[in-house]
């Protein structure tokens, strides 16, 4: 493309503007995007990094000022039980929700992709929770999880013939994370289903036709046509779900603030801890330290994912 321009005869002084223009054109087009990235992503991160070495407070007596405290925030962070608990909760959530939600989404997509009457209705039904605000979902589910006569308790009692007694889902330390996972999957799975559905519908039907003529069973068609053809879709779903899962905040925060909750360390996530320390306790420096450490962890995790899951691209 630009090769033609750079190889233009450079002898005549009047034509000199051409190569310069050519060199700057891509930057010119990228500028708006780069500027936004710089202002809203790079700059805040650099600020967080700088602040994490200070004792910056949210609201303070101005005479006290902000001081450099070297690694104090990081030292305290690694001594803080709440930090390790939050990290554990985050990884627990990601490890369970990402595979489960993606698999469930694929199953639902396969179901609603059937050419049956009413498939559209089911698509709508499965997608509806996604269109509902998470705050509303969390409040409704916290009612469903009610300790004595909640719907979930009755349902569990019914299917286990009363063997599993009523549980206080949101207040038992061991149950609160699974409860949050269940409601998160229920709320989010519709979106991934839709992505898988789009992937499924872009698979050419003649592949299946040919397979059928060759005598391939439904199982074989799924394993050797559907799954390989969905590879890029699956990678996209896995990566976005992982990122969403790391950002877990709303539903857990609402559960934390609805009445007496389970011990906070049994379900507080990194993002929650950041908000609690930075905004509620006013320790901006400390919260910046948390965000830097969290950023490094998530970055490492995403890079690992990129290495393990290679996309097939038409354009390299």
């Amino acid at each position, binding site marked *: 493309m630009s090769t033609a321009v750079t190889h233009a005869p450079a002898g005549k002084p009047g034509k000199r503007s051409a190569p310069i223009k050519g060199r700057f054109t891509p930057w010119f087009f990228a500028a708006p995007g780069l500027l936004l990235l710089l202002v809203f992503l790079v700059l805040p991160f650099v600020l967080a990094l700088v602040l994490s070495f200070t004792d910056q407070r949210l609201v303070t007596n101005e005479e006290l000022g902000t001081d450099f405290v070297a690694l104090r925030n990081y030292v305290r962070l690694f001594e803080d039980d709440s930090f390790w608990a939050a990290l554990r909760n985050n990884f627990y959530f990601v490890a369970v929700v990402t595979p489960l939600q993606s698999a469930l989404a694929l199953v639902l997509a396969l179901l609603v992709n059937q050419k049956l009457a009413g498939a559209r209705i089911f698509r709508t039904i499965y997608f509806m929770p996604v269109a509902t605000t998470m705050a509303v979902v969390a409040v409704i589910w916290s009612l469903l999880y009610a300790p004595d006569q909640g719907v979930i308790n009755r349902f569990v009692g019914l299917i286990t013939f009363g063997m599993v007694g009523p549980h206080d889902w949101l207040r038992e330390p061991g149950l609160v994370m699974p409860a949050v996972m269940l409601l998160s999957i229920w709320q989010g799975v519709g979106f991934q289903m839709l992505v898988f559905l789009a992937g499924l519908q872009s698979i050419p039907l003649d592949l299946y036709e040919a397979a059928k003529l060759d005598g391939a069973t439904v199982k074989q068609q799924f394993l050797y046509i559907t799954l390989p053809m969905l590879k890029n879709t699956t990678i996209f779903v896995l990566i976005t779900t992982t990122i969403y899962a790391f950002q877990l905040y709303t539903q857990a925060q609402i559960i934390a603030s609805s009445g*007496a909750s389970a011990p906070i360390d049994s379900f507080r996530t990194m993002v929650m801890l950041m908000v609690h320390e930075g905004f509620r306790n006013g320790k901006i420096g400390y919260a910046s330290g948390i965000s830097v450490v969290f950023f490094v962890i998530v970055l490492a995790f995403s890079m690992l994912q990129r290495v393990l899951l290679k996309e097939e691209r038409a354009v390299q």
Partner: protein
Amino acid sequence: MQANIKQIVKLLALSSALVSGGAFAQASVAVWVHAGPGPEHDAYVASVKAFNDSQKDIKVDLVALPEGSYSDQVNAAALSKKLPCILDFDGPNVYNYAWTKKIIPLDAFPELAAIKADLLPSLVRQGTYNNKLFSLGQFDSGLAVWGNKKLLTQAGVRIPTKVSEAWTLAEFEDAMKKLKAAGVAFPLDMKFNYGVGEWFTYGYSPIVQSFGGDLINRKDFKSAKGVINGPEAIKALTTLQGWVKAGYVNAATKDDSDFVKGKSALSYVGHWTFGDYKKALGDDLVLIPMPKFGAKAVTGAGSWNFGISADCKEPKAAAKVLGFFMSPAEIARVTDINGAVPGTFKSMNANKNFAKGGALEIYAQQAAEKVSLVRPETPAYPMITTAFAEAVNNIVAGGDVKSELDKAAKKIDQNIEDNKGYPVK
């Protein structure tokens, strides 16, 4: 052309004067209160309307915000220098707000100095930081135990009627045992539905103090170590944990209805439920003085109060509004609804509920007999209450009492260290 421009400039000047509400004609004073929809909110709306109707110089705009995130909202507004002229805040936050210069001292306003002289001593103490008065409260709080006379009598429990007759810990636990045996699902309602927040500190720290502990060393307010995690505090919270484990208290309660519906026979809560309880129980409602868990009974003191923010452009007008809120009629408007102890002697004397034989006499007695104790008077209070409330929540859910309180002590001491001991200049 020239004339046209002149006209436009004139128009602009005129319209900007209109927009600013006629800067010389009327001062605008914004007031923030913490109140969801309900009678307390209606009372504030009525107060503001009465004030706006009574004169033309000042216009008050009332903004009511939900209590749950109220202090976060105040922090956010303070950060962007957009605090309203007058804001209300829960008592012990006054020290932090004064220290961070969110609010200004009130001593310089003559109309407020007169009110100070008539203010209840507990409210003067609550509002004073660094020898200056920073806040005025319309009411003081009362903390005690509401009882359902019918259920208590059925279970054969003695009902104390005076502060001197207060239950001891053994009697209190025996009463809960009897009630449980008599079929009351959860004998004691402790309002865990209020959630992890100021209620946990206001409501449950008196139990710690009754046992002889406290939240911080009040000699110099420099450390909580050995106090909030001292043996007395550990004993107090182990006792509280025991009530939940024994099924006397329902820590999972989701609303206010347990006591009203008779699922609980005792309700450990402040004055603010008076209206609802009276409506539901009528003559069966009795007010029982705070039990003596340890050597002496202790109740919380202090309540929401008003201050004038440093961002206020019309502090003199704000002082007038505040003076109006503190008049006996306006105090009565609020305390008639929430059952609080009126904040000035004038308004207290005018209130039948607190006179001898009145429904709320116990609160007046507790205040007079120095049973009540204000929460720690230090700018570190927001951290103290967050740390304590979190520890209580974990303990009630079954956490280890000692290690939870150790964590709270560490957080408080780190906060004091972070702020260089909260120096006063």
